[in-house]
Structure formats: structure tokens, C-alpha cells
């Protein structure tokens, strides 16, 4: 166990933990965009920058990917950080003027909105990388950051429809700018230019998951998962418990 100081408060933590996690656990929220609790940290958006003072030297780091070391002193909202962060937010906002998530951050942090906003275009991606991280973690890694430099973008191989996509929609769900088009009806889901047929709950006939998702879970788990929605699944368990003899001790 080691300890660090965040905004003057001593926080206990484990070596190697990420700074942002430690700060949030201790009730100090650091603004962030690409960081998502359910995903591995990405470190792309730089919104979560903080000032770290170690051995008398001060530096600015991205807290979501900065492993803590014993005795460091952290300031999450020093004047230097406030200024730099608001520039970063303003630049992000100029890329995606329509994003409610970035707008909220800008308002919250007092970033200079009107000066940098460009005319809204269809391309609002800020390349934060949440979608690819989500696809890697929950789906199949069907999309990736393609190319480099100013031509970098999120795409599937050969700019086509992703062959490995299972239509789970995780990418669209985590996207902070709403760039990824995801639509679903009672029968089907469409995302990345592909259409996926939905399988239904065997209990109540509610749409449940795509066929490809079911196949993927089968491959991953070694056996085919029951086609039951959360409610029907719980009811099934409850019914079993009710009808079977229970251990009473």
C-alpha cells in the first residue's frame, strides 16, 4: 500500500493503479471523455490531464493511463490544468459541435465555445477510440483505427462492411458523439452498413440478440446460451426454486 496526495488530500492506493481511478474512488472527479469505466483506459482525448508533482518537478499527465507512484502530489484543477483542459475541450468541440457529451464538458469547464466551433458536418468522430475498445472487449474487434495522422479514421477493412461484426451495438452505445449509426426495429439491427436479424426470447418473444451474437456467445462459452430475456430467465429460476425441495439447513 502506498499513499499519494490529491488536491491536498492523502489517498491510499496500490502501486500501479491508475491515477484517475484513485482520485474518483476518493470522491474527486476528473473530467474525462475517452475514459469509460467498463473499458481499458485509452488515453486519447487528454481531457483527464492533471498536474503531477514528483521530486519537486511538475508535469502534466493523462490521469487515466498514469500509474501512481508513492508520494506524488496531484492537482486536478490547478490554473495551468484548467487552462489547458479548456483548450482541449474547445478543440474537441470544434470537431464535434453536436455532441451533447462534449458540450456538457465545455459548459462545465467554461471552455471557450463559440470561437472555435466549425460548421457542423456529418463527420463528428473525435477518434477517442471508445468504440474500438468496446468492440475488442465485448464484440469481436471488427472495427479498428485505420490509417495514420490526419487521415486516421475508425473503419472496417477496406472501408467496407466489417466481416467480423456481430451487431451487438457496443460501439454505438459508448460513442460520445453519436457518430456511429445504429438502428434497430423489432426484427433487425443495422450498424456499419450491415443488417442483422434478431433472435427472440423463447419465453415472451421479445427481441433478444442477433443471430451472429448468439453464435459468438456459443463459440466463446463453449455451449449455446439459453434464449431467454432477463425477466424470463429470472422467472425460470424462481419457478425452479419454488417447485423443488429446498435445503433448509
Amino acid at each position, binding site marked *: 500500500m502506498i499513499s499519494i496526495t490529491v488536491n491536498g488530500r492523502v489517498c491510499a492506493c496500490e502501486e500501479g493503479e491508475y491515477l484517475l481511478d484513485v482520485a474518483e474512488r476518493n470522491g474527486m472527479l476528473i473530467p474525462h471523455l475517452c475514459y469509460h469505466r467498463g473499458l481499458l483506459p485509452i488515453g486519447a482525448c487528454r481531457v483527464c490531464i492533471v498536474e503531477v508533482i514528483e521530486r519537486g518537478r511538475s508535469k502534466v499527465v493523462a490521469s487515466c493511463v498514469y500509474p501512481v507512484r508513492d508520494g506524488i502530489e496531484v492537482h486536478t484543477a490547478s490554473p495551468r490544468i484548467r487552462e489547458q483542459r479548456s483548450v482541449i475541450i474547445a478543440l474537441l468541440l470544434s470537431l464535434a459541435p453536436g455532441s451533447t457529451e462534449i458540450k456538457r464538458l465545455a459548459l462545465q469547464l467554461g471552455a471557450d465555445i463559440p470561437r472555435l466551433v466549425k460548421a457542423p458536418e456529418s463527420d463528428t468522430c473525435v477518434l477517442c477510440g471508445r468504440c474500438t475498445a468496446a468492440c475488442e472487449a465485448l464484440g469481436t474487434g471488427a472495427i479498428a483505427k485505420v*490509417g495514420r495522422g490526419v487521415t486516421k479514421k475508425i473503419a*472496417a477493412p477496406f472501408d467496407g462492411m466489417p*466481416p467480423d461484426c456481430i451487431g451487438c451495438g457496443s460501439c454505438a452505445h459508448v460513442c460520445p458523439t453519436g457518430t456511429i449509426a445504429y438502428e434497430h426495429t423489432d426484427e433487425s439491427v443495422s450498424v456499419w452498413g450491415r443488417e442483422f436479424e434478431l433472435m427472440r426470447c423463447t419465453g415472451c418473444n421479445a427481441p433478444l440478440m442477433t443471430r451472429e451474437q448468439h453464435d459468438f456467445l456459443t463459440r466463446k462459452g463453449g455451449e449455446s446460451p439459453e434464449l431467454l430475456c432477463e425477466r424470463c430467465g429470472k422467472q425460470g429460476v424462481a419457478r425452479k426454486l419454488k417447485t423443488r425441495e429446498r435445503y433448509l439447513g
Partner: protein
Amino acid sequence: MDHSTHIEEIARRYPAERRFSLAILQDIQREFNYIPAEALPIVAARLDTPQAHLYALATFYKSLSLVPKGKHVVKLCDGTACHMRGAGNLLGSLSRQLRLDADGRTDDGQFSVELVNCLGSCALAPVMVVGEAYYGKVSLEQLPTLVDSYREGGENDE
């Protein structure tokens, strides 16, 4: 041997692990002078890795190309020193002599020309590399002879 079996054979040179993606793609590039589109699903299946991952690698690294490179790859340095000493003129002259298309390639697949940032031989500016051979202090006058030596049947066209 058709392309697919050849690619399959290259992929099998390495253990079926994701970390060998780049090594396999490099071998394919060396073999075919580009990464054929059909290579992606084959390598992906062998390594049990998504095709998007391989595509990302292929688009990120300059040494990998998704369209066929010429038999002779000409790298023209456009670093600061070479730029000042007329790399732009050399490029213009090269593209006229070789009738390069917009992507810097010739129709016969013999040449492809690319501008690179710095070859680390600034004292020899302007520098040009053909295949593995370095040419320093390249002048517009010597360019036609140099190019001809690499044309089909030329002394440098092995």
C-alpha cells in the same frame, strides 16, 4: 502455387499467435510486393484475430502496401536538406520520365516512387534509394541514365 496457398504457407511459418501479425504481413509484403486483399481473411483465421486488426496494421505502416508496389521501389528523400537541394525537381523529372500515375506507379509494374521524410544522409543531399542502393548528390542530368539502368533489361534490373 496460387496466392491463397502461398499466403497460407507464409502464415504457417509463425506460431498462431496475434503478436506475429506484423511479421507475417511483412513476409507477405516481401513475397508479393503488396498485401493482397485475400491475405487478410487467411491470416486472420490462422491467428484467430479480427481482420480489422490486420487492416489497421497494413494501413499504419508505410512499409506495408495494399496496392502492388513496383518491382523497383524508388524512395526519394524530401527531408529538409534534400528538399532544399531540389528533391521536388527530381520528383517532377522522375514522374515525367516514368509516366507515373497519381499513386506514383508505372503501368508496367516496374517502378513505384515514394517521397520519404529523411534517409539520414543529409550530407549527400539530394538522396535517392532504388531498392537497396543509395544514390547521393543526385542531379537532374544523371537521372535518365540511372532510371534506364533499372528498366527492363537494364544492367541493374536483376
